[in-house]
């Protein structure tokens, strides 16, 4: 079962990166990484080049940088079923001796791998650039509880959430509508980012609340997505 899931995931990732839309995703990487780096540099120049200031700045702008992996994961997942349907390959895939779970998890895993790799890439770029290009005074540990929660829980969960949303949506929409998921993920994340900047709640509490809400959403989406996934519903839309 695992081999099959990995094969499906591998094929999905290859297919995505062979398409021109993969280029658009990397443009998003450049945009959001650049904005984040620019803003962090700005904060550091005003607050001083200390680890405390850097940690606080990263707490805000790593979240913004999550837009890239979220759209990447969403894009791959969206193409998973929509492109199969558009290319008329879905019926053959469904007629293979595969379980529903193997197909669903294979497609989802592709997005998860690409999304988490994207997350690692964008975080490495933003953290690496800001740490190594500035004379940081290490007056405190960089990895605070709030930043850890953001980097290791909230951001990965955001990637998973948009991958699941896209998988569910892709059953109903055509691949030409993939911009819907991209725009919605950018919109939702920018909305949360704006909220984070305006509410008076401290960063740790905000991230904890966010982690709980996103985790609940992920579980709900998975249960909804996995339970509703069946061949008949897909075949009836061919």
């Amino acid at each position, binding site marked *: 079962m695992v*081999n099959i899931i990995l*094969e499906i995931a591998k094929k999905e990732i290859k297919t995505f990166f062979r398409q021109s839309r993969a280029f658009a995703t990397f443009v998003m990487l450049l945009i959001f990484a650049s904005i984040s780096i620019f803003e962090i540099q700005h904060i550091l120049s005003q607050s001083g080049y200390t680890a405390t200031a850097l940690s606080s700045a990263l707490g805000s702008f790593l979240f913004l940088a999550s837009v890239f992996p979220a759209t990447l994961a969403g894009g791959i997942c969206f193409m998973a079923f929509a492109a199969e349907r558009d290319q008329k390959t879905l019926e*053959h895939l469904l007629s*293979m001796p595969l379980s529903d779970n193997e197909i669903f998890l294979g497609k989802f895993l592709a997005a998860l791998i690409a999304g988490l790799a994207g997350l690692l890439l964008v975080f490495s770029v933003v953290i690496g650039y800001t740490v190594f290009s500035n004379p940081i005074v290490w007056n405190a540990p960089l990895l605070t509880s709030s930043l850890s929660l953001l980097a290791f829980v909230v951001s990965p969960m955001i990637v998973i959430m948009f991958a699941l949303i896209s998988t569910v949506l892709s059953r109903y929409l055509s691949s030409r509508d993939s911009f819907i998921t991209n725009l919605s993920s950018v919109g939702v994340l920018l909305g949360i980012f704006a909220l984070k900047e305006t509410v008076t709640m401290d960063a740790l509490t905000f991230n904890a609340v966010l982690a709980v809400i996103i985790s609940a959403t992920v579980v709900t989406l998975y249960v909804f997505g996995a339970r509703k996934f069946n061949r008949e519903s897909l*075949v*009836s839309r061919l």
Partner: protein
Amino acid sequence: MIETKDLTKMYDATHGIADVTVDISSSTSMALLGRNGAGKTTLIRTLLGLLKPNSGSATINGIDVVTDPKDVRRVVGYLPEAFGLYNDMTVIEILDYAGKLERIETNKRAVRIQSLLQRLELTDIKDMKAGKLSKGLTQKVGFARALLNDPDVVFLDEPTSGLDPVAARTMENLVNDLKHEGKTLLITSHILPEVEKMCDHVSLIKQGRLLTTGTLDEIKNQYCKPTILIRLRDEKSAQQAINLLKKSFKEPIEREDNKIILHTNEADEITAAVNKQLEEANLPVYEIKKQEASLDDAYFKAMEA
């Protein structure tokens, strides 16, 4: 081997299949004929376990399609009607990917793919991207993909649709080879002359219900009789011949200009007698020959009924 009993899959009150009972044995190629929307694809999808039947039962090689759909799909190869290939992948990549999903071991997979590439004359284009293939080549690759797991049962939904005559002939030959290899084939098509070449059994389906099933000859004879075509000197002679023959034969007789057509199941036995009777009546016969009923005629009669 395919067996269904009262298989029913209705989407709503009028669409789907109802009470379909068929029994297709090995080394048989059965054509499933019917108008668009008659339920042909629904029957195939139900047999593949892609659609859950409302009632009835179906087995393929003794495996229940409702309880063990995954096992059914292991022994079935399927070429859907409107199918595509992954356009960004090469022919060999597509077959290799399909082979992996079919769980064919690496060594066996490579051998099987090479054998199918040769058999379907695809070796020269194995490194070509699927998006650049012609309709005929795409159909061949789809066929190769359907045969990758060396299935016992093959479903072909409109396999020759849109193909040029050469590609269609290749497809016919392949189907006949598969039949001789002992495989069970269920084929849907609207091109009836090709069906006659590819299939030995026919099922007619209308509005989701199976009208009849039988060998090609049984179906033809069920709906149409063979005919004796007699060409006479002129229309007047033809009319005189009809008047004469009606006294001796109860079978329907038609006239078209100077030709008369006698519908009978005993064409072989009575052709000489008819000829003699007309000659004796001084109605010289220019031509007399037996014509077999065609599937085309039988199909139209069945659909009109």
